[in-house]
C-alpha cells in the first residue's frame, strides 16, 4: 500500500493514530484547520520514509455532498447584445447551486509548515499522484470528476474581498468565527441566506470582482501541485471567499 518517493526518501501511507496530534496544527488548502473528527473518506499521508513523521496529507472522498449539501457558485456568462446600438457586452454571472453533489473530492490538502515552499509543492504533487493511482486501481467508489476547493485571496486586514462584496451583505457576523464554530456545515447554513437567483458579477465591488476565482495564499502550493497533476479551474467558486474550484476528469486517468 505504500510507495516510497525515490528522490526524497518519502513514503505514502494511510492514517495512523499518532498522526492526529501533529496534523491538528496544520491548515489545509482552504486556510482552515484539518477536519480530523467526522471526516469522510480516506487519508493519505506523505511521511518521511525513515521516521514515518507526516510531511503532507490529503483526504480522498468518493462522493461528496450526499449528507450535507455542498454549495458553490457556478460562474457563467450572458451576452447582452443590441446590434442597432453596436452593443455587445458579456456579463459574468454567479448562480448558487450544488453542482458538485456526488463528485469525488480531494480535501484537506496540507503540508507541514516546516517544509520549505518548493518541497511543499513536490510533496503535494507526489501525494496527489498517489491518490490518482489509487483511484485508477479501484475506480468503483469514485465519480467521473475529482474536484478540489482552493482558498480565495485575503486583503491586508485578513478579510476576503469577495466576502466583503457579496456574503457580508447577507450575513453580518464574522465568517471565520462561523467556520470555526460550524466547520463544513457553515457554508450550507450560509447558503440559506444568499441570493438564489442568478447574480451579475458586475454588481459586486471591483475588489470582489477581481478576487473571484483567484487562488489565495493558503492554496498556493496546492495549486501548483494540482496544476502539475492536470487539474484546472472548473467555472465554479466557493461561496464565502470566492476561491476557485478546480477539477480533473477521472476518465482521462486511464489514458495516462
Amino acid at each position, binding site marked *: 500500500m505504500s510507495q516510497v518517493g525515490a528522490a526524497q526518501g518519502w513514503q505514502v501511507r494511510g492514517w495512523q493514530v499518532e498522526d492526529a496530534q501533529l496534523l491538528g496544527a496544520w491548515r489545509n488548502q482552504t486556510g482552515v484547520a484539518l477536519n480530523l473528527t467526522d471526516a469522510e473518506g480516506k487519508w493519505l499521508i506523505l511521511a518521511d520514509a525513515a521516521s514515518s513523521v507526516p510531511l503532507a496529507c490529503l483526504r480522498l472522498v468518493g462522493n461528496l455532498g450526499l449528507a450535507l449539501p455542498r454549495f458553490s457558485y457556478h460562474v457563467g456568462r*450572458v451576452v*447582452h447584445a*443590441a446590434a442597432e*446600438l453596436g*452593443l455587445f*457586452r458579456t*456579463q459574468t454571472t454567479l448562480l448558487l447551486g450544488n453542482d458538485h453533489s456526488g463528485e469525488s473530492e480531494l480535501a484537506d490538502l496540507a503540508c507541514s509548515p516546516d517544509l520549505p515552499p518548493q518541497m511543499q509543492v513536490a510533496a503535494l504533487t507526489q501525494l496527489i499522484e498517489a491518490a490518482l493511482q489509487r483511484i485508477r486501481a479501484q475506480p468503483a467508489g469514485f465519480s467521473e470528476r475529482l474536484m478540489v476547493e482552493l482558498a480565495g485571496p485575503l486583503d491586508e486586514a485578513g478579510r476576503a474581498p469577495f466576502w466583503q462584496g*457579496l456574503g457580508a*451583505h*447577507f*450575513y453580518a*457576523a464574522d465568517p471565520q468565527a*462561523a467556520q470555526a464554530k*460550524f466547520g463544513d*456545515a457553515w457554508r450550507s*447554513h*450560509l447558503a*440559506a*441566506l*444568499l*441570493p*438564489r*437567483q*442568478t*447574480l*451579475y458579477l*458586475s*454588481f*459586486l465591488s471591483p475588489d470582489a470582482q477581481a478576487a473571484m476565482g483567484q487562488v489565495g495564499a493558503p492554496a498556493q502550493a496546492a495549486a501548483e501541485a494540482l496544476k502539475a497533476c492536470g487539474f484546472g479551474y472548473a467555472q465554479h467558486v466557493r461561496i464565502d471567499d470566492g476561491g476557485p474550484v478546480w477539477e480533473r476528469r477521472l476518465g482521462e486517468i486511464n489514458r495516462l
Partner: protein
Amino acid sequence: MNPRDLLLRPVALADLPALERIAAASEHGISSLPNDQTKLRARIERSAEAFASLDDASGEETYLFVLEDRSRGEVVGSSGIAASAGFHDRFYSYRNEFVVHASPALGVSNRLHTLHLCHDLSGYTLLTSFYIDPAYAHGPAPQLLSRARLLFILQFAERFNERIAAENPGLADQAGQSPFWDAVGRRFFDMDYPQAEAVTGGRNKAFIADLMPHSPIYVPLLPEAAQWAIGQLHPVGELPFSILQEEGFDADTYIDIFDGGPTVEANLALLRSVRHARALEVQAEAAGFGLPAWHLAVNAERAGFRAVLAELPTTAQALAPDHEAVLRLGVLPGERLWVSALWPDASERSRP
C-alpha cells in the same frame, strides 16, 4: 385667478408655441414632451387623430390636453393619456419584492429586497405629460389638469384599460445623473442616463430592457445612493404625484427601470374622482337645492371634450340649461355632463 376662467380641452395646432414653451420649461426627464418643434407638431397631430378617430382603440393613441386661462387667453399647462403602455408590446418596470431568507442554525432571518423585472404594466393606460405653469401650481388648476383625464377615460372606457398607471421622475442631479441608473442601467448600457434617454427617445423601453438582467436585482448589493433612490420621487414631481396619491394610486409596488422613480397604478373604478363621479342631466326644471361645492365638470364629447371647475349642489341630479357651468361646457338641454366633487371629504368642502 378665478377658477371659472380655467378650461381644459384637447390640444390644437394653434397651441404649438405654448407647447414649445412648456417643453423648454419642464425639467429634464420630467415631462414627456420633446423639446423639438417638429416632434411637438407630430405629437399634436397624433393627439388630434386620437380624439377624432371613430373606431376605438388600436392602443397607440396618445391624447394631449391643454389647460387654458380664458381670462388671459393663455395655455398654462398640459397633460396627456397614452391609451396602452408599451403599445401592445412589453412595458417594463421593476417590481419591489421581498423575500425572507433564514438560517435557523446561524440565528439569522433577513427580509431581502429584490427588484424583479416585469411586464405587469403592459397595456395599462398611462397618464403622461403633466406640466403646470408655476404661477398656477397652488390653486385648483392642477387638480383640474390631472383629474379631468380620469373622467375622460371613464366616459370613453372602451378606448382604455381598466387599470391606469403613471410614471414619476426619480432622483437625478442637475446634470441629469441618476444614482439608480449609475448602479443598474449603466452596467448593461454603457452610457449616461441622459444619453440613454436620448437614444431611446420616444421608443419603447422594451428595447433597453432586453439589455437588462432578467434575474432579480438584490438591493443589498447596490451602492447606498442607489438603494436610497429606489421609489424616491424627484422634487419637481411632487405636485402631480400627490394628486395621484390622493386619488388612491398605489406607489409602493413598481419603479421605473431607468431612474428608480415610483410608477403608480390603480384600478380606474377605485380612484376617488371616479368613485364620486356622477352623470347629471341638463333639464329646465332642475332644482338648485343643497349646499354648493366645487366640482370637476366635463361634457360628454370626445373631440369636443371640455372640462371646467364648477360650483354645484352636492345632491344635484340635474342642472338647469342656464347654469353657468353648463354654458361654459356648451352642454345642451337633454344632454348629460359628468361631475365629481373636487374635495369629496365633507371636511374639505370649503376649499376653493
